[in-house]
Each structure stands twice: as structure tokens, then as C-alpha cells.
């Protein structure tokens, strides 16, 4: 293939990968923004979402088929179920530790992550589960590059979810409450904001987005497994940091940027796919050294 077609193909790959990263990064960024917790279980919610979607799809594909007619209900159910799971996790594991040292909460989050992974491991026996759909490979051709309708719908769905989220957070009372809690929890309590409920809402939305990404990734890659959440969790956090943690447009930008970086990184001579993660993490470290607030983050004022 000529060079520009390789680049075009990687652009398409990077955008799709980036939109998954962005969806997962949004949840990370929202939770971090509101309660300053690095929710390690977030990547695993993406994995649980994929399995929930798979479960629904295999139940209903008998009479609605394995196309979008089955996938859309699967996504919606998975978002609801995992959203509720996120709220339960917050209630059981994180809320009792709101005043505890940061490190303790972080360890709790790691424990929840281990728990989810091992439950999934026990159910699947560690095997890859084939996520079969009846979506074809029809699409449009741009030169030698073939982009399927499925890929376009995946990116489109991600973008729609992100826009809805941004409108919600910037335009509604609940969104305003979230932003207020991020600034000063105690002041929020004094102003009559139900802090615990707003945090629960943040977990609901963040987890639902991760679940949506999980189902979409299942549709895209065609297989799911119990450890699929680990690496994407790591990279989504990287994306959130690059974009500026706590910022919603930042998480989207960071996600897309990371996806593109990874796709083009494999084309650099000497990098290749086995070195791509080293490339991504080295980029993250350099990025943090030179711009620790991320692309769109607010510089944090350290109070004495």
C-alpha cells in the first residue's frame, strides 16, 4: 500500500481505538474530578459491561437477530446494569472510606478490581468468549482503505454519548452539583447539595459509559475476556491525564489523541506493535514532566 493509504488506514484505526479510550477515560475523569479517587475498578467495569452486553445479546439474538436490533438493547441494558453496579461499589467500598487516607481508598479500589476480575475469571474459566454479531463488512471505500458502517456507527455512538454527557454536566442542576463538589465538598454540604447522591450519580454515569465502551469493543473486536479491562483502564487513565484530568472535553481529546498516537506509533520504524505500549507510557511520562495539568486541565492551586 502507498504511504498515504497506510496513514489513512491508521487514522481510521486510531479514531476507533481513541473513541473507546475516550469513553472509558470520561468515567475515570469524572470520578477523579469529583472525589479525587483513582478508581482502579473502572477498567473492570468496562469488562463487566462487555459481558453483560454479550449475555443480553445471546439471550435475545434468537428473535431479534444479531444485528443492531440486538446490539442496541444489549448496550442499553449493559449501561443500566453496570451503572447500578458502579453505584453499589461506591456505596459498599468507597463511601465508608471518604475520610480515610487516600492510599487506603486506592487499595480498596484495587481490591474491587481484583474481585471483579476474579469473578469474571471464575465464570469464564479464563477463556476468550466469542462475541458474535451478524454485522457484515459492508461500508465505503476511500481509496484502498475500507471503512465499514459498523466502525462508523461505533465512533458515532461514542461521540453522541460524549456530547450528551457534556451537555448534562454543563447544563443541568445535577451537573452543576458535580462541578461544585469537585471544588469544595464541605461548602456543598453547607449549601444543601446532597453530596452522597451526587457522587452516586457520578458513578452511575461513569460506569454506564464504560459499559457502553465495553459492548462496543466486543462488537468491534469480536471477542471478550476477563482481563480486557486492565490495559484499557491504564490507557484510559493516561488519556484522562493527557487531556487534563477532571475535564470532559479533555478526556475526549486525550482519548482520541492516545488512540491516534498508538495507531501511528506502530508505523514508526523500530517501534512496531510490540513496543507500542512502551511508546505510549514514555509519552505519558514526558507529557507529565512538561505539562502536568494536561492539555485542558486547570492548574491546581496548592493550598497551604
Amino acid at each position, binding site marked *: 500500500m502507498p504511504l498515504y493509504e497506510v496513514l489513512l488506514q491508521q487514522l481510521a484505526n486510531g479514531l476507533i481505538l481513541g473513541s473507546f479510550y475516550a469513553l472509558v477515560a470520561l468515567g475515570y475523569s469524572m470520578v*477523579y474530578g469529583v472525589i479525587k479517587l*483513582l478508581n482502579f475498578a473502572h477498567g473492570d467495569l468496562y469488562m463487566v459491561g462487555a459481558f453483560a452486553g454479550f449475555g443480553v445479546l445471546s439471550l435475545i439474538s434468537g428473535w431479534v437477530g444479531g444485528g443492531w436490533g440486538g446490539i442496541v438493547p444489549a448496550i442499553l441494558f449493559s449501561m443500566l446494569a453496570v451503572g447500578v453496579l458502579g453505584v453499589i461499589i461506591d456505596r459498599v467500598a468507597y463511601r465508608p*472510606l471518604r475520610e480515610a*487516607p487516600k492510599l487506603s481508598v486506592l*487499595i480498596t479500589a484495587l*481490591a474491587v478490581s481484583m474481585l471483579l476480575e*476474579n469473578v469474571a475469571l471464575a465464570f469464564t474459566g479464563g477463556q476468550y468468549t466469542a462475541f458474535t454479531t451478524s454485522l457484515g463488512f459492508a461500508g465505503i471505500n476511500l481509496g484502498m482503505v475500507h471503512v465499514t458502517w459498523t466502525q462508523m456507527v461505533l465512533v458515532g455512538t461514542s461521540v453522541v454519548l460524549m456530547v450528551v454527557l457534556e451537555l448534562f454536566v454543563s447544563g443541568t442542576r445535577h451537573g452543576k452539583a458535580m462541578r461544585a463538589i469537585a471544588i469544595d465538598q464541605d461548602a456543598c454540604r453547607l449549601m444543601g447539595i446532597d453530596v452522597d447522591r451526587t457522587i452516586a450519580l457520578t458513578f452511575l454515569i461513569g460506569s454506564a459509559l464504560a459499559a457502553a465502551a465495553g459492548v462496543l469493543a466486543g462488537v468491534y473486536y469480536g471477542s471478550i475476556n476477563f482481563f480486557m479491562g486492565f490495559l484499557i483502564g491504564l490507557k484510559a487513565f493516561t488519556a484522562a491525564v493527557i487531556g487534563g484530568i477532571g475535564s470532559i472535553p479533555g478526556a475526549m481529546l486525550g482519548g482520541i489523541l492516545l488512540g491516534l498516537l498508538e495507531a501511528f506509533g506502530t508505523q514508526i520504524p523500530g517501534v512496531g506493535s510490540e513496543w507500542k505500549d512502551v511508546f505510549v507510557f514514555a509519552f505519558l511520562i514526558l507529557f*507529565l514532566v512538561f505539562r502536568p495539568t494536561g492539555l485542558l486541565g486547570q492548574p491546581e492551586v496548592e493550598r*497551604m
Partner: protein
Amino acid sequence: MSEAAVRLGRPGWSIRRALGVVVLLAALAAVPGFANNYYLEVLSEAWFYVLLCLGLNIVVGFAGLLDLGYAAFFAVGAYTAGIVTLRLGLSFWLSLPISVVAASIAGVIIGGPTLRLRSDYLAIVTLGFGEMVRISVRNLAVTGGASGLVGIERPTLFGYHLDSIGAYYYVFLLLAVLGVVASHRLENSRIGRAWKYVRSDEDAARAMGINHAMVKLAAYILGAIFAAIGGCFYAAKMTAISPETFTFNQSLLILLGVVLGGRGKIPGVILGALVIVIFPELFRDVGSMRMLVFAISLLLIMLFRPAGIWPEKWR
């Protein structure tokens, strides 16, 4: 603390306490006399994790910096030993100073850029660093790629070939004891106090003239050296090392030992290290579910004892 000890300005070493330590060490040294190989294997591993947890405790416990990539330093030690003996054909004992230098450099690489960062970013940078090291040893030719290094020669000490599990029981017991002594001395030294000062209030510490960057860097380097020395002996004991030993889960396990037991408190960390090794062994019958049981127990401990089982008293 007894009054005499307070006057001497160091933790109390009453006759009774000293006697207790001697009896405990004698009992531990006598274990290979009657225990079978299974127990020796598990206990050697436990001493090994005591060393690693004590090393990580310097970073996480004393200095209050999160490190999610500690297995990288362990990998540096193990691969140094492997490369020194296999690729360079030198004596195993030379790998100890070399790995100390290598670990210090790794400590500066990870510590340097992260000194200015917020604590949560540290988590992700150290995690990324750990993954970078693992992927690198997996892809490089000198480290043997995915299959790792095989056939590392076991060392000889004063004409005695260290080639039995009993010998390694003593090696790791000795390393653990040295680790405890070193941690204890560090904790009560000038730098130990500086770590705890920076941990509780970095701004106040800086105002008092503590060079916070140097102090944090020292924590990373010393912690790395513990893991590197442990890693050398690990390579000698196993004779084969592969990248899959140094995954994120390994870093996590060591961190769990530190936090579970009680970060910042040496007896707590020892307890935590013993728990992470012995607990999964006790639940071997549950098979693949044992990590699940472990995760639930960890969750419960964190919910009811957020500072660990045997926490440090804050003064």
C-alpha cells in the same frame, strides 16, 4: 519505651526484648532441621517477600509516595544477575554491586520526573514505568525475550555451593533480617525523620530546610536497592527468570503486603508479607477461587482497618 531508652534517644532495647529476638531467630534458624521441603519453600518465599515489602515500605510507608511499579526494581536485580552470570560469564557475587548501581539509576529515572507531580499521577507513572520495564525485557534480545533467561548458575559461598532449598531458606532469612535491621536504622536516622516530615507536610518540611526532592529520591533509590538485591538472589534460587514474574500483579502483591500489614510500621509490614505468601497457600484447596477470597478479605480489612492490621502510631 523505657526511660533509659528515652535518655539514650533510641528505641528501647530491654534485656527481655533482646532475649526475645534471639530466641525467635534461633527458632527460625532451626526450622530446616525438621520442616519438609514444602514448608521450606513457602517460608523462603515468605522471607523473600518480607525483604521486598520492607523495601517498598521505605517508599510507600516512610516517605508516603505511592509506587505501583515496584516489581520493575525486582526485575532489574534478577535480570542483572542473569546477564552478569550468563551473558558476561562473571561471578554471581559481582551482580550484587552492579545491580545496586542499576537499581539506583532506575530509581533516579522513575523518581526524577515524578518529584513535582501530584500523588495520584505518581501512581500512574510508576505503573507505566513498571509496564515499560516488563515489555522491554520481553522484547530485548539480551534478556532472552519472552522465554527469559534459563540456566543461571548458583553461587558458591566460602566453598559451599548454594544449591539446596535449605541453603536458600537461610539466604532469604538472612536477607529479611538484614532488611529489618536496615529499615529500622533508616527509620530512626536523619533521613528517616525527613521522610516522615515530608510525608505529613511537605510544605512545612521545605520551610524547615529539608530538600524534599533529594529526600524523595533517596527513598526511591533505597527502596529500589532492597528489591534489586532480593532479585539477584531470586534469580540464583530459581536459576530461570521470565518477564511474566514481573507483571503489574507482582507489584500489586508487594504493595498489598505493605498496606495490609500497616504501612510505615516494620512489624506490620513483616506481618503483611507473611499474610500475602501464606494466605494463598492455606487456601490452595479452593483452587482458582483463592484470589477471589483474597480480594474479598482485602476489601474487608481495608473497610474495617484502613491503616492496616498492625498500624503505625502517629505521633
